[in-house]
Each structure stands twice: as structure tokens, then as C-alpha cells.
């Protein structure tokens, strides 16, 4: 198979591996993910945006896990690379917190993927309609604090925002299982299986499941076979592309600097987008960044359509 065709094949992703200081545990989880066939993993930091002054709004993104050559060997043989991304999940409850989650904050843009977990209906609607996020995550392990509505969900799908269903809590505990199933099936009736991302939130390596197994869980929740397989592969890639357009001007031009090239691993440093703030723009002009729009004009960030 030609290399270009290989790149279009399903690339299984798990976009919710909770980041913890316990690097040994994290390494085991990532190694298990590689063994199961995942090609892309996102280390997730969950934070409630800080409200006290002097404290950084969000912590800086975590460093990728060190993986040995032996673990990465199967990837190298096939000519693929294992991708470790960073993801931020902001738990938002008040409008104040909502405003903290915006692409102007450089620490936030340093993360590859931006996700949000709304705790009430107002935040959910804000996340679906306006917020510049890639994934909306709902805590499915309890009765949802608000009823899902069709209009915000339709709006979110049109914008290219994805909804996340997490499966490890269902595996861990049989009582949580029924909440996950009932919330997930409810979500399915509204979004009809589109724009769903299935991910693990596994705290131990034993809680991970292979990508085809997870796709079958999607079928259980109410998707059909094709949608379920998309939920672990193509929809994740779609969310990632949506995230990348945040760092670009008009969704077309972006700058990437390839940092180190250890065989089998690509880590990419994204240069944050041209800020919409006029003062910052004038400051940036000295660095010679490529800009499509003249300073002062807000670059329009358009959500990219799903690319298969």
C-alpha cells in the first residue's frame, strides 16, 4: 500500500487519558494503548479555571510520556508514528469561568485540544453556541443536572464541536454503568450518532479497551456500526483538525515548527494564533509572523468541516 493511502486509514485515538503526576502509571496506560492498537492519545488535564488573582488560570500543558524504543518498534516498522497530544478540560459553572476559557490566553492555546465540561444548562448552551472549544464533555456517571435540548446540540454539530462519551467509569463500577448507558442513549437520540467521540478516562491500564471493542460499545449506546467506528477514529481526527484551526488565520494558514524527531514520535510545537487584541498584534509584528489580515482586523476563526 502506498504511504499516502496508509495515512488515510483509520487512526484510532483515545482522547481522554487523565494526566496525573504518577508517571509510571501513565506510562503503563500509554503502553497498553499502543499494545491495543491506538495511534493517538491525548493526555487530559481537568481544571476548574482559577478565580483567585495571582494564580495562573490553567497549568501549562504536560510533557509527553517517555516511551522506549521497544514499545515504539511496531510503529516504526509500519512507518507510522505514535502521537501524544495534550488536552485541557475546563469545568465551567459561572460566566466568569466561561470567559477565562478563550483562545487569547496563551497557556490555553498551548494545549492541542480544548474541551469543556458544563455543569448547568446555561453553560451547556454557551458551549454549544459560542465557546471556542473542540469537545464538550458531560459527566455521565450521575443524573445530568439539566435536560438535553435539541437546538443547542444541533448548533454544536453544525459548528463542528464534538460530544464525548467516556466508558471507563462504566467498566469500573456496575452502578455507574446504568447511568452511563441511560445518559449515552439519551444523547444518541438527540445527535443521531453524529459528532460523538468515545474515549476512556482510564485511571489504570487494565481499564482500557481495544478500539473495536469501544466501537461495539458505541453500537450498544445506539449508533450503527459505521458511526461507532467513526467515533473512535475519524471523529477524533475531526476534533483535532477543529483544534488546529484555532491556531490558524481564517482556518487556512498555520505555522508549525517540528521540534524533535525521535524516531517514531512526532511532537509539534504550534505557534499560537495571531491575537485578536490590537496591542498584541502590533507587538507581534516585530517577530515576522505570517499574517493574512492587516493588524486591527479580527481574524475570523472558522470551524473546519469534517474531513474524511
Amino acid at each position: 500500500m502506498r504511504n499516502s493511502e496508509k495515512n488515510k486509514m483509520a487512526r484510532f485515538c483515545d482522547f481522554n487519558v487523565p494526566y496525573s503526576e504518577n508517571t509510571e502509571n501513565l506510562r503503563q496506560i500509554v503502553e497498553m494503548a499502543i499494545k491495543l492498537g491506538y495511534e493517538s492519545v491525548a493526555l487530559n488535564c481537568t481544571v476548574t479555571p482559577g478565580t483567585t488573582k495571582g494564580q495562573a488560570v490553567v497549568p501549562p500543558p504536560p510533557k509527553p510520556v517517555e516511551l522506549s524504543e521497544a514499545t515504539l518498534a511496531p510503529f516504526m516498522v509500519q512507518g507510522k508514528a505514535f502521537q501524544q497530544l495534550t488536552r485541557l478540560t475546563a469545568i465551567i459553572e459561572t460566566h466568569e469561568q466561561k470567559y477565562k476559557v478563550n483562545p487569547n490566553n496563551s497557556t490555553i492555546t498551548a494545549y492541542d485540544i480544548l474541551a469543556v465540561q458544563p455543569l448547568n444548562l446555561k453553560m451547556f448552551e454557551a458551549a454549544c453556541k459560542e465557546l471556542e472549544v473542540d469537545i464538550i464533555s458531560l459527566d455521565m456517571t450521575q443524573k445530568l443536572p439539566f435536560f438535553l435540548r435539541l437546538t443547542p446540540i444541533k448548533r454544536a454539530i453544525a459548528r463542528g464541536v464534538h460530544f464525548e462519551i467516556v466508558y471507563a467509569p462504566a467498566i469500573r463500577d456496575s452502578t455507574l454503568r446504568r447511568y452511563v448507558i441511560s445518559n449515552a442513549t439519551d444523547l444518541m437520540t438527540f445527535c443521531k450518532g453524529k459528532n460523538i467521540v468515545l474515549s476512556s478516562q482510564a485511571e489504570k491500564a487494565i481499564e482500557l479497551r481495544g478500539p473495536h471493542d469501544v466501537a461495539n460499545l458505541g453500537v450498544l449506546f445506539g449508533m450503527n456500526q459505521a458511526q461507532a467506528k467513526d467515533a473512535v477514529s475519524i471523529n477524533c481526527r475531526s476534533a483535532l483538525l477543529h483544534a488546529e484551526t484555532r491556531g490558524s488565520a481564517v482556518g487556512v494558514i498555520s505555522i508549525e515548527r517540528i521540534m524533535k524527531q525521535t524516531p517514531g514520535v512526532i511532537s509539534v510545537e504550534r505557534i499560537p494564533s495571531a491575537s485578536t487584541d490590537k496591542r498584541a498584534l502590533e507587538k507581534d509584528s516585530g517577530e515576522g509572523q505570517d499574517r493574512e489580515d492587516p493588524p486591527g482586523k479580527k481574524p475570523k476563526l472558522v470551524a473546519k468541516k469534517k474531513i474524511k
Partner: protein
Amino acid sequence: MVRFKHRYVLAELVFGNDLLVYNVTQRVVYAAVRDIIEQLHGGYGIGLFTPGMSVKYINEYTRMVMVRCRRENLKILASAIPFIKHLPDGKGGQFPCFLRTLHVGGSIKACQKWLVQHNRQVLPTLLLRCTSEEEKSRMRKSIFDSTIVKEEPWTEGKNDT
């Protein structure tokens, strides 16, 4: 557009002893139905079934129970109801009983209309079962209460024997 459609199952609680000794509440019936679904259909069944399920009406004297479920879960509910073998009797024990499904309707109003008709036929037999005058009047009152529909209030005259 996305409106959940429901089905209302009207069932009669049957137990051997004709006298009403047991205190059966909505919560008790809800717990019994939920437990039987869990036993038969497991975690998956409970997850699908519980949202939208509730016990809408219960009449201890005529022993009528109305359970609501979502339209797609009707088969699960209807097939699980016969498996209920006993209910807690409020004193820590359990009394043997079963639920006899009488009618399935699409709305509470439809079920109520059917219930009125059913009561008209069954009331004479029910009154015969009551021993004291006080029980008879209580029975009559509960039947009248159950047959009152908001749009057309039934008067006592129509339900008189």
C-alpha cells in the same frame, strides 16, 4: 420533534387475601418494577428503562396501579410485570402477590377513560367484598376520585349503583 412518547400500563394488584391489610405505595411498586427489570435485563436494561419510568397512579382500595414507561420500552415492561412475585408489606416482610395487566394506553386520559368503564362493571363485585359500611364508603370515594377527569367532571349520579 424530539418528544418522548410514553405508554401507560394499567395493572391490577392481585393477592390471595381479599382484605386490604397491606400498605402499598407508589415507591414500593416503583422499587419492585425496577428490581425485576434489573434481575431480568441487567445493567443495560436498567440504563435504558429507568429514565421515563414512573408509577403514575395507585389506588389501594381498587388495587389499580398505573406505570408509565417510554414507548420503546413497552415490551420490556409488559414482559417483566408477570415476574413480580411479592411486594414488601411495610413491616419488614413480603407478601405474595402479582400484577395483572389490564390495559395499555398512550396517555393518562385514555387510561382513565378505560378505567371508568372498567369500574362501572366491576364496582358491584367490589362492594360485595367489603364487609363494613365504612369500607364501602371509602371504596366508593376512591372510585369516584379516580374517575374524575379534568375536562368533564363526573357527578356522583353517573357512578351510582
